[in-house]
């Protein structure tokens, strides 16, 4: 198998540049969970090196470790040598998928996207198609929640944004992070047929879509909170929140897109008192929902979300607010799991768009 990892081989310099200083270990949620070096970014870099040199075979243990990475990218932020550890992991995943090492659960997700254009394989997605002034990319996660999507569109209209909505297909981000290279390329082609990138900027609800669409199109993609923050005025707030909250920065929105001030500004406008967690902004910790681990290792994902919820509870806040549908769902699972352990009411997890909708005008739609 020696020298046959041509994709990974291109990143060999990253592996040799890594000084093994270990600064990546204590920011990695996977290492913090179990504490074995094999589960650290440095460990994954070493395993990738072993594959390149032909000293390691892609056995079950190695494959498992490579796919446990949540792609939160906190290792890359902390690395003093600017080593592209997340890219090495993605490259290793591509190599492993090519060798037939993908698991059934991830293949099922990939098939969903390929066959239906939708992450969940939902053939009955209701696309709220409409004419408008600004192109909007809703994203699979939000499309799977038609009621909240309707509210989000209403919210945009209240703020004077007229979104143009077409029948979109998945942006392909999940395929990329799970290592389905060929499928990802085809999905990007399908996306470009279904969705026009001619007009800029394009708005989106989803942090993952924001980062990925920008990467594949090279166009200006705005997360909806950037636009909302520009438009939201005090007089539009009918019912201030007046709560002590803490804010969970989604990895793709904070480290990925550098958007961590806008949601805080919005929360302040809504009358929230923000009590920060220990790990915030571009040093935020993963909720446990990234990089495909929800389908790879749900136990690990659950433990990560519980750790993040515990951090939120420790602030003394009444709830944790976030801006990503995956973070919201994953954190809710973590909160429920903690409830199973301590019998208390689940710690509230709220999407900032839901909070905005309620605060800007009373809703007559089901909540």
């Amino acid at each position: 198998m020696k020298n046959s990892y041509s994709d990974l081989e291109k990143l060999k310099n990253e592996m040799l540049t890594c000084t093994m200083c270990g600064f990546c270990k204590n920011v990695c949620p996977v290492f913090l969970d179990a504490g074995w070096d094999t589960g650290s970014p440095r460990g994954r870099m070493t395993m990738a090196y072993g594959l390149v040199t032909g000293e390691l075979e892609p056995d079950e243990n190695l494959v498992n470790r490579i796919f446990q990475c949540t792609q939160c990218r906190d290792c890359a932020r902390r690395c003093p040598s600017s080593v592209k550890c997340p890219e090495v992991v993605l490259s290793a995943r591509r190599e492993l998928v090519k060798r037939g090492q993908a698991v059934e659960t991830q293949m099922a997700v990939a098939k969903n996207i390929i066959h239906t254009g939708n992450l969940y394989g939902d053939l009955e997605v209701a696309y709220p198609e409409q004419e408008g002034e600004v192109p909007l990319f809703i994203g699979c996660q939000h499309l799977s929640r038609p009621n909240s999507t309707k509210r989000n569109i209403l919210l945009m209209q209240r703020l004077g944004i007229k979104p143009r909505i077409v029948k979109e297909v998945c942006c392909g981000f999940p395929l990329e992070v799970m290592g389905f290279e060929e499928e990802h390329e085809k999905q990007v082609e399908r996306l470009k047929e279904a969705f026009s990138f001619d007009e800029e900027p394009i708005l989106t609800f989803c942090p993952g879509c924001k980062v990925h669409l920008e990467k594949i199109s090279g166009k200006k993609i705005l997360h909806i909170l950037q636009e909302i923050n520009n438009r939201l005025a005090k007089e539009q707030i009918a019912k201030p929140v007046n709560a002590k909250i803490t804010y969970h920065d989604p990895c793709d929105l904070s480290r990925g897109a550098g958007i961590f001030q806008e949601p805080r500004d919005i929360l302040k406008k809504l009358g929230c008192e923000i009590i920060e967690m220990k790990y915030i902004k571009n040093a935020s910790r993963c909720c446990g929902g990234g990089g495909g681990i929800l389908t790879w290792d749900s136990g690990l994902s659950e433990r990560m979300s519980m750790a993040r919820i515990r951090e939120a509870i420790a602030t003394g806040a009444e709830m944790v607010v976030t801006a990503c549908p995956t973070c919201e769902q994953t954190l809710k699972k973590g909160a429920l799991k903690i409830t199973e352990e301590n019998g208390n009411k689940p710690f509230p997890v709220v999407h900032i768009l839901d909070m905005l909708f309620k605060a800007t005008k009373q809703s007559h739609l089901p909540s």
Partner: protein
Amino acid sequence: MPIVEKRAKPESIERIREIVGTDSVRTSKADLYVYGFDAGMHRSMPDAVVRPQNAEQISQIVKLANEHDFAIIPRGAGTALCGHNTPVAGGIILDLQKMNRIKEINPGDLLCVVEPGVICDDLNNALKKYRFFIPGPASSEAATLGGMVAANASGAKALKYGATRDYVLGLQVVTPTGEIIRCGTRTLKNSSGYQLEKLFVGMEGTLGIITEITLKMAPLPEKTAACAAAFKELVEAGQTVADIIAVPIFPAQLEIMSDICVKAVNKATGLGLPECGGFLLIACDGHPEAVKDEIRKVKEICEKNGAFFIDYTEDAKRIEELWKGRKQMLASLSVIKPEFSTVMLADDMAVPISKVPDAVKGFLEIQDKYDIYIPPYGHAGDGNLHTKVLLNPENKEHWLQAEKAVREIYDLVLQLGGTVTGEHGVAISKAEYFKKERADSIPFMRAIKRALDPKNILNPYKIFDWDESFLSNLRYPVEFSKKEA
């Protein structure tokens, strides 16, 4: 000492599983491969990675190792830089990271008690509210206290605050034959016989496995002020260091960086330090009035020695920024040239403080003879200089040049009355020159090792027992024959 394999056989590993539980033993190839590497230049695969939970389990494992004749390599975070964690004869890695409880913080007695796997910064975060701290190495956010004791690690604050050695009051240790002993005391001083707790400081895992540490704490200074100064020539910076100490002023930190280092930090951190031949970072801490007076004097000395740029600040945020750059120095250097990597060679020599300018000048002259970079920087205030060799790790010629350059560097250091290692240790990479430096005392060190570890179980073939060149067991994609090395 010629290396004889001391492998752990499957039946030994099975017995270890019974002692610590199946989940605490890893033998998959990926695990063994990963644990074969650490932050040093060398590598070698262990036969198992074992994560014990307490001293009793470790004692049983050590007794088994004596019975079955396999090596044990204790390991903390794997941040050691000289091959300390490399299982050169096989055997098991004892991963102590999960023995990480802070057992006691006792401000009244000025001490704290920790397990070996506690990370230095985690302890300092816990000590902060009591207004105490333990001075740590640049790797304090990753390094464990067990490893710090075993390597007698220290960092930028050693001039004023000393090294890890100066904080160890007592230890619980599992000896190489499996006894659990306590040495030292819970008192700030003791004259009760041999200072055995100090014997285990700097032993690099060869004399015992540290299972509990009682540490003295230093008071957290009330105020810190910093002065950053840039000089046209590196020697001017070196002379400034000697002049500051001679006042006498003991800054909390006094760091020197050469031009390449400044470029590397700027590139990695975007700090925007001025390009120069020599850069000094100086911090004074303590009572606010004393700090003000000290930093003013420091500034004057910098000016007198020709500093063309001086950034003088009491702003905590700016101070943190400046030191963040310094803390990232080692790793930052690896981004200077794409195909070059930082390798842990000639990484921490120490010379008498007055010899810093001579050493720095000499290192630069040596660098000029070769195609590789050897940028000097370091904790100049305590005479501890780093060079770090930057080379293309796939280029054999670079390694051979490095070997020659390192030899010249160490010869110069010894000639100036220095030591080959101020804070990282010996293990593999410095063994050859260490033996030259400590020729007189090596028979005594060896006698201690043989007496305490008759079967050569604990981290064997390191320090005085490493007879090969540092070019063997490299973790990089080059190989050298015995003749070449």
